[in-house]
């Protein structure tokens, strides 16, 4: 698998990054009120919990030791009431942050999806689907954890810790100093733990991504894997990637296994200090027994947030990394931008636009020119064929016309207007395209044909299917047009898939029709029937047809010959034959007669 697949996963944010945090805050939006209430509840709840040990101290010092039963009952009732209230507060707080988090994250997910709908094709060339999926799923999930259990809970933990320290100092500063003297030790342990775990966390993420992408490719391509007997080798690799991941997990387990007991130990030291130091203070009459008991309870309550904070740190860090990746998508510049003020598609009186390529140069990468100085025009209602060897750049031509990519030099005009100035959607709606790489969606046959014009009636769908003679196989299916289609049309034959794509393009009756090898996998008889039908249907429509079989393009008014990215010949069939150039050779090769003097591919 390619290396750059993983690079992106390795981006790891700092646990706190002011810039990202500010930006994330922007998403809180209308949830601010909810969160504010949550914080308030949290503070009240924490205060309630802090008060507990104080009440215990009071009970011991003022009532139990003085045998004041009614007083004790009152205190216990107060204690219970407080406990109930703080539980209610905590519940409210958890619910509010969770709900707010859901709303916030839902908005981010939508924004991300909308952005993905606007990003242009070059972006999709670079980013595998699996990676984009994990942006939409696991990264957004990490952000949810940040909002729901991260930020607010961390505030809560910090407040609790500070509160406990303050209360301790207020009760008895000497004992407080003795007790809190273990904090540096605690900080050190947490620091070391964090450092190691952060590193491991990053590695884990990278390795999981690797494992998943390898798994996915294997599942999707299992047929080929099996045909080429790759099972043992691929298993070996899978095992290796999995083993590597396990190794990282085991190291993580080690640090957790050290961390928790180590914190327990520090806790024991703190209690020991209270007993020893506090005991001495008590003997000197400086503290009461109640104070001592309260301190023991506070230390108990001190350690839960400490443990939590160490874990929350991971959430925070994961979330920041996720935010980094999500924002990267959201900030991604759109390589093929829509114009600020899009012009409508100018339609000639006949209802169809003309098409013109003017000195077009294009490269997918840097200056690997795929199209070189290509110029031609298709008049309104004209039908033009493009021929040329494989890899000559025919499909690229179509991609440019649909504005999947922008040309580097020159311009493309539709209806006399540069397509950079046209509304993208209007441009694409005007063109019915049958792409060379057929893609059918999971759903039903009907949904697939109706894809471009969802409001068309079933009648229209059937008509389109009849034009391309797809209805013959559709009607043979158990539930006809409602027959479910599997992912990528796995249960259809290749030709059937192509017919579906063809029907889909015809349904919308587009002013311009573009066929890229649309009948390559279809038998000659059906192909001829389709051609007859289309000829009637699209009489005088602007169209561009790419085909390797010259017989397919006989009805075209003009033929363009593309060779190594250059337009080397154009004209009617007769003119091209008269030129005795590439087309002439191609023609005789296919239809017999004069054998080619030398190869087309390396000729000219």
């Amino acid at each position: 698998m390619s290396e750059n697949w993983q690079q992106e996963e390795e981006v790891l944010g700092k646990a706190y990054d002011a810039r990202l945090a500010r930006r994330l805050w922007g998403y809180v939006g209308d949830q601010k009120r909810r969160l504010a209430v949550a914080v308030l509840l949290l503070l009240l709840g924490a205060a309630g919990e802090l008060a507990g040990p104080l009440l215990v101290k009071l009970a011991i010092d003022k009532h139990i030791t003085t045998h004041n039963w009614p007083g004790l009952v009152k205190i216990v009732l107060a204690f219970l009431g407080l406990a109930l209230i703080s539980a209610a507060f905590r519940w409210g707080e958890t619910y509010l942050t969770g709900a707010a988090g859901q709303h916030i994250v839902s908005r981010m997910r939508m924004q991300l999806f909308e952005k993905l709908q606007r990003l242009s094709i070059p972006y999709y060339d670079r980013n595998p689907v699996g990676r984009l999926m994990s942006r939409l799923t696991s990264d957004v999930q990490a952000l949810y954890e940040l909002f729901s259990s991260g930020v607010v809970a961390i505030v809560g933990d910090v407040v609790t810790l500070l509160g406990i320290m303050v209360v301790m100092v207020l009760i008895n500063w000497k004992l407080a100093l003795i007790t809190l003297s273990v904090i540096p030790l605690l900080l050190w342990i947490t620091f070391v733990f964090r450092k190691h775990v952060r590193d491991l966390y990053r590695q884990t993420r990278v390795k999981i991504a690797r494992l998943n992408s390898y798994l996915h490719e294997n599942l999707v391509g299992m047929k080929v894997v099996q045909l080429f007997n790759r099972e043992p080798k691929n298993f070996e690799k899978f095992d290796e990637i999995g083993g590597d991941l396990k190794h990282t997990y085991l190291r993580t387990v080690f640090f957790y296994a050290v961390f928790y007991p180590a914190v327990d130990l520090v806790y024991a030291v703190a209690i020991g200090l209270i007993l020893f130091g506090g005991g001495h203070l008590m003997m000197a009459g400086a503290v009461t027994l109640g104070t001592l008991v309260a301190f023991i309870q506070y230390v108990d309550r001190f350690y839960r947030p400490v443990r939590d904070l160490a874990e929350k740190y991971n959430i925070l860090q994961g979330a920041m990394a996720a935010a980094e990746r999500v924002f990267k998508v959201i900030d991604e510049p759109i390589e093929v931008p829509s114009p600020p003020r899009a012009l409508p598609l100018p339609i000639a009186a006949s209802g169809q636009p003309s098409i013109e390529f003017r000195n077009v140069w294009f490269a997918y990468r840097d200056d690997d020119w795929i199209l070189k100085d290509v110029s031609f025009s298709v008049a309104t209602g004209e039908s033009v064929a493009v021929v040329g060897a494989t890899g000559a750049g025919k499909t690229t031509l179509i991609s440019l016309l649909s504005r999947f990519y922008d040309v580097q030099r020159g311009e493309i005009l539709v209806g006399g207007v540069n397509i950079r100035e046209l509304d993208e959607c209007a441009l694409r709606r005007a063109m019915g395209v049958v792409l060379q790489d057929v893609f059918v969606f999971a759903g039903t046959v009907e949904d697939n044909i109706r894809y471009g014009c969802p409001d068309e009636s079933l009648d229209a769908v059937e008509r389109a299917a009849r034009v391309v003679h797809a209805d013959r196989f559709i009607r043979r299916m158990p539930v006809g047009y409602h027959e479910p289609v599997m992912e990528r049309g796995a249960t259809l034959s290749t030709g059937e898939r192509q017919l579906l794509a063809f029907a889909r393009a015809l349904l919308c009756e587009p002013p311009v029709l573009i066929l890229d090898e649309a009948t390559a996998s279809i038998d000659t008889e059906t192909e001829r029937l389709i051609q007859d039908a289309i000829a009637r249907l699209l009489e005088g429509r602007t169209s561009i047809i790419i085909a390797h079989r010259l017989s397919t393009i006989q009805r075209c008014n003009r033929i363009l010959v593309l060779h190594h990215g250059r337009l080397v010949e154009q004209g009617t069939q007769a003119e091209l034959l008269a030129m005795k150039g590439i087309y002439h050779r191609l023609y005789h090769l296919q239809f017999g007669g004069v054998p080619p003097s030398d190869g087309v591919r390396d000729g000219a």
Partner: protein
Amino acid sequence: MRALLRLLPYLRPYRAQIVWGVLIAVGNSAAGVLAPWIVKLAVDSLSTKANSRVLGKYALLLLGSVAVASVLRFLLRKILIGMSRHVELDLRNAVFAHLQRLSASFYNRNRAGDLMARLTSDLERVRYVLGPGIMYPLDTVTMGVFSLTMMLLISTKLTLIVLISAPVISVSVFYLGRITYRLHSQIQDQFSRLSERAQENLAGVRVVRAFAQEERETAKFGALNDEYVSRNIAMVRVQSLFMPLIGLFFEIGTAVILLFGGWGIMHADLTIGDFVGFIGYLGMLAWPMIAIGWVANLFQRGAASMQRLNELLDSQPDIVSPLSPFAPEKMRGEIVFDNVFFRYNGANTLSNIRLAIPAGKTVAVVGRTGSGKTTLVSLIPRLFDPSAGRVLIDGVPTTEWDVQALRRSIGVVPQDALLFSDTLDENIRLGAGDATLEEFASAAEISQISADVAEFRDGYNTEVGERGLTLSGGQKGRASLARALLGNPAILILDDALAAVDTHTEERILKGLRRFAKERTTILISHRVSTVKHADEIIVLDQGRIIERGTHDELVARGGYYAELERMQRLREELDHMNGMANDA
């Protein structure tokens, strides 16, 4: 729950770890349970006859016991959680190996996204059962028993009073868990829908754009997203009860102890130390109480997930090598279809196929779209087995062949060239990693991919992108052809492999192939008469039946489908030719 029994074999290698785990858990709890007792003694001593020495002794004792408990706790985690990671790997590998044995029909029924989910998130939940799911119950039991004993030692009455609320907590945590479980599966279902939607949208991005359907796609995704959010919020509502409830249990316990303990102290039944110790034990007991509900939950989810993994493991691989497989050194390449029938599910896709192809001959298959050509050839490398009848290679039914040996000697160029996101070189070497440079060069030459590669800046190291998306249609097909040729197969199957290739290149490929195919059995599927006419035999399929067979000349003479095909193609050529001639003049 029974689903989880399937894990036992995976645990067997780790028996020793589990035994150690149990022993250590007992030790850990025994050591851990001392701490509150020591605190109790210390507090008691403070109210009577404390001095530095006594206090120091208690402090050190406390530290000592906790230190022992910590070391044991470390071992416990390391052993048991570590074990869960080992088992996770074993289990994942086992499922993957099983998936590798499942045939095309399985992959037609199951979506890749769903399989992925099972191998990732379900596996993770099963692991929870093995790690925390073993560790926490051990804790619960040992800790529970020990701290209860200590509490009883301090005061039977108080213990009973405090424990009244315990079952309430366990039960309510359990029920909350049940509700959570139900909500959780609803969320997961919705999540699957959401991801499938997104997956299709992203994979089909070019179609989405070409038909300008972005807005509608966004609306559909938005609707799913809204439902997903509202289900999640329903979950949050329930889940947010969890922690407060648990906290409440502890606080109520403390209150009860305060009240009745206070009573006891006033009546000299108890000491302050007892009281402090008791609260300490309550803390220790609280966790096991919670854990019971939580672990029950963990097991429920784990069982549901294991069930989903079991479904995979129970899918019978229908295409496997027999017990004593036929695996000759070398395949000759004779193919016989002996009265073969095949159907995917409904009606027969292939009926009554009788066909004998002598080793080294070339047979061409033509026929309408959907007539069953691809299906026919997919029986040869045993992607599917016939529903009735037999396919024999070298006189041996494919079902008796060693599957690996069979496929090793068959080179298939599938109709859709499926490439992997790797370099071109890796893709072509897929089946024959050890091929020499000459073999590689010759495969690349015959398939005519070499000329294209010469123009690529990175040559064979070009990354082809997902499914080969950075290659042109014809380049993909020829890369896939080179991949099949490199294996040096005895049988070569070309399923309309040249459809996306221009005529000139096709001609060169066919010329190269004829040399290559001389000593190999070749099956050619095509719609073009020019491609198939040199074949030793041509068969015509229609709705899964062979309706014509013979050589080109015989079939043309017979005047059936093939003759019509030939006539049609020739007519157009001639028509064309005449046009051309007329204009030429």
